């Protein structure tokens, strides 16, 4: 999925410059530009943005509250500071990253990719089974009980159950017999291994 960026910056020269760099990146789109943060929250909803770049000097003393509030309202977004002037380190602390006025093009590109890396990992995590989950799936498909699986993998029964819940959430399959078919179809086990 392409990343959707909102740019909130009062200086048109700076905003144009950064927008040009971002738009040159294949997996990023600037979906909205604002010169003040008044309607930022509505804009995030309207554009389904996942990355907001904002100049902290626009927020002044309310900086910290604003960032905390926005994070609560939109848990899925990454908030990045655009440091256009010399700013106190504390002011930048609440942000998920910082772009400096003097950053080079390649540095900005590198940072942008870093900012969304966590996002994409999480999306992947929602569909693909982790190594541990695959191991549990194989054990379930072979007909092992939760207790046996816990003993063999040296984890608690509670952890086995959590893995099984995740397996069901990701595959959409609830029954043991269904999971066995799934494991066979994906060549995770061989028919001869079944009891």
């Amino acid at each position: 999925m392409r990343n959707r960026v909102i740019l909130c910056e009062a200086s048109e020269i700076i905003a144009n410059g950064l927008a040009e760099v971002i738009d040159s990146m294949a997996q990023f789109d600037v979906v909205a530009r604002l010169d003040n943060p008044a309607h930022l929250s509505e804009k995030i909803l309207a554009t389904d943005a996942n990355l907001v770049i904002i100049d902290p000097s626009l927020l002044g003393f309310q900086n910290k509250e604003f960032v905390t509030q926005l994070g609560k309202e939109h848990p899925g977004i990454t908030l990045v500071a655009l440091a256009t002037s010399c700013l106190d380190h504390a002011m930048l602390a609440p942000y998920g990253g910082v772009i400096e006025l003097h950053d080079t093009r390649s540095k900005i590109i590198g940072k942008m990719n870093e900012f969304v890396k966590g996002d994409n990992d999480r999306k992947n995590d929602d569909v693909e089974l982790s190594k541990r989950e695959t191991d549990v799936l194989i054990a379930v498909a072979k007909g092992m009980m939760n207790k046996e699986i816990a003993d063999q993998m040296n984890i608690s029964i509670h952890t086995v159950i959590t893995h099984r819940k995740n397996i069901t959430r990701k595959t959409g399959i609830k029954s043991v017999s269904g999971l066995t078919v799934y494991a066979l179809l994906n060549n995770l086990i061989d028919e001869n291994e079944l009891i």
Partner: protein
Amino acid sequence: MTDDIMAKKKDLFSKEAKLAELIAGDRKLLQLLPRFGIALGFGDRSIEEVCRMNHVGTELFLTICEIYSDSSFKPLPKTLHHADMSGLLPYLKASHQYYLNERFPHLEEHLQRIIEACGTKYGPMLRHFYDEYKREVMRHIQFYEEELVFPYIEALRNGQRPDTYQIEEFRHNHTNIQDVLDDMMNILLKYLPGDILPKERIEISLDIMELSDDLNRHSLIEDHLLIPYVESLENALP
């Protein structure tokens, strides 16, 4: 839902309404008619008339239709106490027969073609999956409900109290029949290689969705009508 629609819906589930109108209001109710033994050709007769002609308790018929139509509907305690419930077990048994003698064989016929097309690599395991599922369904319907639960209820209705069973257990014993059915659909749609009989697989998946929906509503009738009814029978006995 606006009040207007609510009022209109309420009107449909009354004994004065025409059966044809009720069915036009919710077409799924059509498949309940054979389970009550109601013959087609009912013309423009009212629900009460049609029920009388077919020896079906009107109030029971309306209650079951309403649960089937609206998953949040729960019958009032007075319905449980005063309605003629003699038709409830025959209705549930007829539903079971319908699943066992019509829906599952139909499903099986489609599935057989897919299993054959899968060849030796996936065919046997699909067959095994289905056979196991069918065994589970048979066990639940035939051995559990029809041979244990229903005779228990009949005995209660005759004023006896067998100590073999209590309906409370039934609540916990709803098996994963629907879960496995959903699994089967996921396997057919998402996980079998795409080139094996795609048309057939879409068709069978639509059938499974319908059956799964029907079974869901069937368990609502058991949860919202059968269990409270049997509990009231249990409590009425000394």
